[in-house]
């Protein structure tokens, strides 16, 4: 009964903390890389959620590791995102000499 390893709340709480703090990072950093780090943190929270549910609801999943597969896809997409984000940051830095996201206001219309 007791113990941390077999308590789903532990995993989900950490996932929630990752998500909340990642959100805060993404919202406040005056640095494109910082925003990107926040997003990574949020993605990890989501992945942790998937894997935790996968482990705890195994008997309902017909033997397929659905949660783990989803988590794997998240990792793959995060890798793509990293590549594209780095390219954009470099490009942006090349033209504006800064990576402050507040400089990028082309969407203002």
């Amino acid at each position: 009964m007791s113990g941390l390893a077999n308590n789903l709340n532990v995993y989900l709480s950490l996932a929630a903390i990752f998500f909340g703090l990642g959100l805060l990072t993404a919202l406040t950093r005056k640095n494109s890389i910082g925003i990107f780090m926040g997003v990574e943190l949020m993605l990890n929270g989501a992945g942790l959620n998937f894997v935790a549910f996968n482990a705890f609801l195994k008997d309902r999943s017909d033997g397929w590791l659905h949660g783990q597969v989803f988590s794997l896809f998240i990792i793959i997409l995060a890798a793509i995102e990293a590549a594209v984000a780095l390219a954009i940051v470099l490009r942006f830095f090349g033209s504006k000499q800064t990576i402050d996201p507040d400089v990028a206001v082309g969407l203002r219309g």
Partner: protein
Amino acid sequence: MTFVDFFVGFCFLLGALSAVVVAFHPNILYAAVALVFSLLSVAGLYGALGADFLAAAQLIIYVGGIIVVILFAVMMSEDVYKNRGVGGWKGFFAPFIISVAVLWALLKLVNQANWPRIDVPVREHTVEAIGRALVGPYALVFQYVAIVLLAGLIGAVVIARPHYHEKSSGSNLE
């Protein structure tokens, strides 16, 4: 309190603390290093949950790959020691309130529910099961992700390529 319990608790604390550092440390370089530790803790929890393949993938792709890319970008793009990374407290206030509200709502949701408990997460090798899933029910998604990866990489190259939009004017690229 078994070793696994201790390990999970350790990962939890490590992850939570380093996430706090990621969010609040004014120096982006420190934050990036702290991100390494939070990603490591996630890898540890994957291991504790019996997802050995994912734990390895997390280590290799995230800690080994993405973090390096992030650090690389930080180093390349800005004078990291001059930029404090966060704005003044005024710009911090509204996002802080909102993020804490989201965090609190999530934690409340998590701890309200009556989750199923298992004795100890079953540990077995998952590589084969994941492989079967990827060519079974997820075959289409797998292919799709592959295409997205390809498109993303090409896009990244095109974006990062210098002066690509000036190629008609005969730049130094040709």
